[in-house]
């Protein structure tokens, strides 16, 4: 852990804002620039910043490596799952129109869910790769 008080306090102030911004980029992706990919990377960057200042051990206490693996796998599963659900509902693979009566609603639900899948996979992959690199000879 860094002994530098300024760095530690600045990180404490920045981290929640980075997470909030990641969620904004995720859920505002329908209206402005952004989406699952960008949000996942920003979210992972928040944890990376925390790990650089407070050390890998403390970060893995907050967010265990296993969660990253689960997030990575469940994101891809969720995305492909939407495709299977649309198939079962009588549409084509990833044809979101089948998800709701009104096709605009269906598209919204489909895009929302697959973007969530992208977020989970990108975030999980980024944080897992970071843990794997940093764990070889700690960044602490």
């Amino acid at each position, binding site marked *: 852990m860094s002994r530098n008080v300024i760095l530690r306090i600045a990180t404490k102030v920045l981290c929640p804002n980075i997470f909030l911004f990641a969620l904004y*980029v995720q859920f505002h*992706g*329908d*209206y*402005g*620039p*952004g*989406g699952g*990919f*960008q949000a996942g*990377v*920003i979210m*992972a*960057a928040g944890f*990376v910043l925390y790990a*650089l200042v407070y050390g890998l051990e403390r970060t893995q206490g907050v967010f265990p490596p296993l969660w990253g*693996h689960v997030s*990575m*796998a469940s*994101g*891809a599963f969720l*995305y*492909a799952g939407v*495709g299977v659900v649309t198939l079962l509902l009588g549409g084509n*693979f*990833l044809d*979101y129109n089948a998800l709701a009566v009104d*096709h*605009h609603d269906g*598209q*919204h639900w*489909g*895009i929302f869910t*697959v*973007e969530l*899948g*992208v977020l989970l*996979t*990108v975030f*999980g*992959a*980024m944080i*897992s*790769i*970071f843990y*794997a*690199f*940093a*764990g*070889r*000879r700690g*960044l602490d």
Partner: protein
Amino acid sequence: MILTEFVDIALLALLAITGLALLKIRDLVAVVMLGGIYSLLCAGLFLVMDAPDVAITEAAVGVGIATVLLVGALTLIEREERPSQHSRALPLVVVLFTGAMLTYGILDVPPFGEADNPVQEHVTPRYLEEQEEEIGVENVVTAVLASYRGYDTLGETTVIFAAGIGVLLLLSGRKERRAGSEEDAS
């Protein structure tokens, strides 16, 4: 209009300066930081070219994550780059040849942002005109990415998933083995 051109020239000039500095500097930490700056300048250029989605990605991946991963890699190796023992003639020829070919290719590229460019005439008009009715999402980029091109994005997500698994298999396994062998040695 003049302002955009000024910003373009300033960003490209800084990009060239950063590239030259990357060649000269031997301190690897500084090289990694300059790499991050290079990415940030690219993100700025993407923003000027009206591609905020790409700019955010470049800023987050190129500046943030890539820099951190390279710094992580630096903790495993020396800080100074060793001067190369090989002759510089061959790399120079390769670079000059590639540069010449790229410049030759650029001559055929239509001017940036023209209305009758091939990129504006293929599927783009259809996406822009029908998106409102078919998808109903404000951001057309999101509509194309997640709905029209849903298969592609599923593929990209799978690639990222596979990359994550690959890195985990390569790095996590070896660490345990090495920890074991160190114990044996002591």
